[in-house]
């Protein structure tokens, strides 16, 4: 089968599902096609979305590929969607960042890093499926250990955990524009 046909098939299966599909998964489903051909089809679709007059793009997220609307059209789409977008409190974001970078880790470890009780936030992040219980740590008391989920990567548009900015990059970024990073706290803004 020629490249154009494979491209069409790959587009159709990426279109019909509600989750990102990994290259492995696509190759298993389209077993009669070579992995290289499928990879080329994905690249061609990605390229088409970027070069033609398109409102969507093919992004790499949570270890797979998924069509997503372009961020510049968010305003129009929000008019159509009734549900309000999920909002994250600074506490939730802090906790998520700590878990994302330090996983697997226990509640006590999270609380040491944050300096505050984090039980309620952990519960709410579990409810939202942004974090998961990975198991129990093999130390006295056998505390639960937490990690992030596929939904976390999907929500924050992350290809994989390795694509999180490194902590060194963050430090450099913070040094370059130190004080403006304080903005989220209303108290600080008012100075």
């Amino acid at each position: 089968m020629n490249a154009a046909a494979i491209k069409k098939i790959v587009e159709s299966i990426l279109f019909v599902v509600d989750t990102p599909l990994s290259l492995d998964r696509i190759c298993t489903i389209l077993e009669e096609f070579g992995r290289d051909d499928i990879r080329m089809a994905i690249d061609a679709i990605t390229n088409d979305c970027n070069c033609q007059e398109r409102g969507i793009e093919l992004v790499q997220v949570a270890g797979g590929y998924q069509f997503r609307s372009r961020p510049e059209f968010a305003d129009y789409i929000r008019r159509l969607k009734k549900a309000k977008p999920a909002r994250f409190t600074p506490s939730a974001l802090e906790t998520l960042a700590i878990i994302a970078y330090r996983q697997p880790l226990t509640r006590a470890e999270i609380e040491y890093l944050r300096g505050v009780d984090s039980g309620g936030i952990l519960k709410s992040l579990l409810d939202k499926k942004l974090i998961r219980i990975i198991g129990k740590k093999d130390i006295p008391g056998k505390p639960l250990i937490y990690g992030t989920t596929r939904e976390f990567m999907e929500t924050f548009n992350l290809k994989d955990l390795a694509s999180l900015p490194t902590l060194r990059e963050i430090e450099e970024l913070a040094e370059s524009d130190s004080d403006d990073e304080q903005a989220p706290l209303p108290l600080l803004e008012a100075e």
Partner: protein
Amino acid sequence: MPESTQSQLFDEKDNIAYQVRIEAFEGPLALLLHLIKKNEVDIYNIPMAAISRQYLDYLDVMQELNLDVAGEFLVMASTLIQIKSQMLLPQITDPALDDDRIEDPRAELVRRLLDYERYRDASILLAARDVLERDVFARNFVSAEFDAFPAEETLPEIEIFELVDAFRRILAKAPRESFHEVGSENISIADRISDILEFLQGKEAVEFEELFAGSNTREYIVASLLAVLELCRLRMIRILQFETYGRILVKNAVIQSADTVME
């Protein structure tokens, strides 16, 4: 200054929302970082006296405003005072060591502050990403063409948290008397029940002691004993003893059959 902002905000007495916002410092570390930045001091050389005083002033303001000062803020206050007094004490130096090899009493605090700042910055970057359902949208449903095909039975994807949370919800609405014993705390008893049943499978009878052979920790023995008692209660095993102080035998009372089907 935070103080002036607060009094200004609190002039609007009817605006409850501000009362929540005012304690927007996520915790003692955030407050300390703010004070360090505001005073433009070197984080590696924090002037403890000045910073502790400002920190305590802030807590006073919060208390005066009847804001609930979380326990963590108070713990940090005592840590700050402790560090401050440690620094006032003459350093007992070991002449054999270089001076800078004595750990600065502030060292752990500085490490925590730097760590905290890093993760807070990371969280700001996280929020600035193209968040799904806020900045970008995907098809969060399957198409009708896809749904039209019959579903195959494959193993579901569920998280362990969903399981325990489901159980919690059931218990919350379940009839009261079901709360007795076999609590989830005894979950290792469930393991032992499962193991004992497996062990008994295909055997006529086993010696009581054999059921405890796996380990000799107190916890294991207690769990095993409770498992045996529970199995007796459920009438899934029988315990036999033919003479006083004689051998105790455990017999499988479960009717095993390979072709057991649903009723």
